[in-house]
Structure formats: structure tokens, C-alpha cells
């Protein structure tokens, strides 16, 4: 992180802020999309996050933490956006598995199952999976980005993966309704 740019941005220098945000923005946006699952929601989340980062910069004590600060604000924005829209339990259409399992079809089925399973997860579980397996963050970096202790990150990630496995199993069973669509307990 360019500390001088952070310092300038903290004093209200929008050019410095733009220079800081530009290299981070694409990845932050993809993380947002990975968590919320829809482009429009990701757009709303990252725009809100960037505005919050900009407004909150004067209160950032350690300029070196700018990037993790961005992730923390972003995950909060994603959670807020997700709760606001309350569309997390919408089931995706089941593609069916009766088709002959060629490699291509199997890939499609895997992706479909992952999408269906992933959407069944809570926001918190999606977040730790995305940060760890997509953003390649260590547990310590995730703790900093989410704002919880490292031990909590480890246990949350463990539970998230267990929930994903359970959700994938559940996703293979078509047409779940009502409470069955909620996150499947590991």
C-alpha cells in the first residue's frame, strides 16, 4: 500500500483515493459478486463500500491497513445488501441428472450443484469461503478483513465447508421447498 497516497486520501484528495482504489477495485468487485451472486447487487455493494471507505478514511489509524479495511467495509456492504434484498433462499431451477453423464454435462451439473449449494449458505459462510478460496487470504488476513479473531475464522470456515458439502448433497435432491431451502446444517 502506498502510504503517502493513503495519507493524501485521508485529507480528502479524491485523486489519491482513485489512484489507491483503481488497482483494488476489480478484485473487490469480483469478491462482492462472489458473495452476493448477482451483478446488480455487487454493484450496489461495492459502490456503497467505496463511499464508506472514502468517508471513513480520516478515521483509519494505520494506513498500511488500507486494503484490509476495504475488504472489511466491502463484506459489511455485501451483508447489508444481501439482507436488504432478502433473496438468498431463491432456489435455482434444477437441471436434472437424467442426461447421460458425458464430461461436458458433468461439468455443467457440477457447476449447477455448486451454484445451488453455494446459494444455500449464509452470507457469513459464503464470505469466508470466497475470501479463502477465491481471494486466497490466509486466516489472519481474513480475520483482519472480517473483523473477528483468527480462531473464529477457522471455525467459521470449517463450518462453512461442512455446510457447503451438506448443501451440495441437498442440491442433488430436487425441488426442496420452504424450510428445506434454508442453509442445510452440516
Amino acid at each position: 500500500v502506498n502510504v503517502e497516497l493513503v495519507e493524501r486520501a485521508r485529507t480528502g484528495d479524491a485523486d489519491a483515493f482513485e489512484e489507491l482504489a483503481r488497482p483494488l477495485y476489480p478484485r473487490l468487485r469480483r469478491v462482492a459478486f462472489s458473495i452476493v451472486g448477482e451483478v446488480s447487487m455487487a454493484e450496489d455493494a461495492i459502490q456503497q463500500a467505496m463511499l464508506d471507505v472514502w468517508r471513513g478514511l480520516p478515521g483509519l489509524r494505520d494506513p498500511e491497513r488500507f486494503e484490509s479495511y476495504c475488504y472489511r467495509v466491502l463484506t459489511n456492504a455485501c451483508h447489508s445488501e444481501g439482507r436488504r434484498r432478502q433473496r438468498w433462499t431463491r432456489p435455482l431451477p434444477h437441471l436434472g441428472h437424467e442426461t447421460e453423464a458425458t464430461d461436458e454435462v458433468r461439468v455443467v451439473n457440477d457447476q449447477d450443484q455448486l451454484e445451488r449449494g453455494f446459494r444455500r449458505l449464509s452470507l457469513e459462510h459464503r464470505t469466508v469461503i470466497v475470501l479463502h478460496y477465491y481471494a486466497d487470504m490466509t486466516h489472519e488476513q481474513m480475520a483482519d478483513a472480517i473483523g473477528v479473531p483468527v480462531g473464529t475464522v477457522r471455525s467459521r470456515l470449517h463450518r462453512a465447508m461442512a455446510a457447503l458439502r451438506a448443501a451440495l448433497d441437498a442440491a442433488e435432491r430436487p425441488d426442496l421447498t420452504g424450510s428445506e431451502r434454508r442453509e442445510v446444517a452440516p
Partner: protein
Amino acid sequence: MTMDRDPMTTLRDWLDDRAATAGSSEASFRETMRLVRHTPQGRRARILQAMRGHTGRESSRPAFQVGAVAIVVASAGLALAMALGWSASGDREPHGEPASPSPIPTEATAEPALPSIDRSLHTAETLDDGSVLLIGGAADSAPSLQRFDPTTGRLSDTGELTMPRSEHASVLLGDGRVLIVGGYGTDGSRPVAEWFDPATGTSTADAGIDLAMTRPTASLLDDGRILRPAPLNSSSR
């Protein structure tokens, strides 16, 4: 779970592929930065940078910061802050006698020299070139339109409205013109709307716009229309 490969590899690949479908971020980034620059902090910074000769450093003088905050809080903040005596000494100039324009030092520690203006019940609009147009209000012998250039610290007379007015509303339009509506005339009348074109320095009355309200507000919408509240006790709008 039907993943035949290493499940973690499959998950990583799927997340990568899925994230890639989010598309390009350039347009999103531009829009986000536009929003950032339109926050009060962004607008304040633009003005302060211009006044400091783009040094990009914050003055530590409290009086300066208080004045800067005033710019942001009200749309007419800059003019208001100056009208209230925004200077290191706090001295105020007599009515209609703006101080001699002084170039702004570019040293980061220097206090920007600003002209004092005694004007009230006016509005101010930041024009496309960064200068600030002071519009109407009570200003005694000063013309009804003045322009402040923060890069030079100069205040210049820009002309007159077609009719004097105060407690009006103004809005900068997308084509660079300024629409001025409502308010009170000097005799208590309700002046008609008028357009001011900064490019030509001319004002043009427009009786066709029915916005003769006192103490109105006007906001430019994204589609170019102007939003203003309906008058109280009116059922016709």
C-alpha cells in the same frame, strides 16, 4: 457431492469462473469515483485544492478548516463563509467593498488570502470551470452577479440579474447555464425566472417558467428535469 477432482481445486476453479462472469469493472469504477467526488468531502477537497494551488496538503489553521466546512454544508457555503469574514484575522470589509484580489500562495503552510464579501440571502453555484458564481441577495452596491476564482483568489463582477432578488433558488444545468427562480424582489414582488449563461455573461428573464415562489428549492435530476417542491397551500401542483 459429485466433484471427481480434488474438491478444493474444483471449488477454486468454480469460484474463479463464477467471478469472471461479473464482467468488466471499468464503467463501475468510473461511476463509483464520480459518486466519491460528489460527496461533501470530495467537493470540499476540490475547492481546497484549487485554493491551495493544487498543493494537495491540508492547512492546519482551524479558521481555514471551519471556513472550508462551511463551503460544504450549504450550497452557498463559500460565499457565506466569506461573507461571515472567512479570514485569519476575522476582519470584515464594509458593504460593497471587496478587498483587493490577492493571488493565493502555493506554499502548503501559507494561509490563502481571500476577499471579503458582504452579501446575504444569495445563492452560489460552482461552475464547470471551478469558479463560484454568487447570485443575487443583499449586497448593497455590489453587482448582483459576481464570480470568484479560487485558483487566483480573484472576485470579479459578472453582471446583473434582470431583476434584483433574494431568498431565491438557483441550479446549475447540464449545458452550463444557471436557472434562477423565485425569491423576493426589492419591492417585495415575486420576480420571474431567469437564465444566466456564464459563457456570455448574460441574463435572460423567462416568464414562461412558473416558479415564482419565495424561498424555493430546485434540484437538477439526472434526466435534466428540475425538481422543486409544490408551494404550501396549493392544490394546483
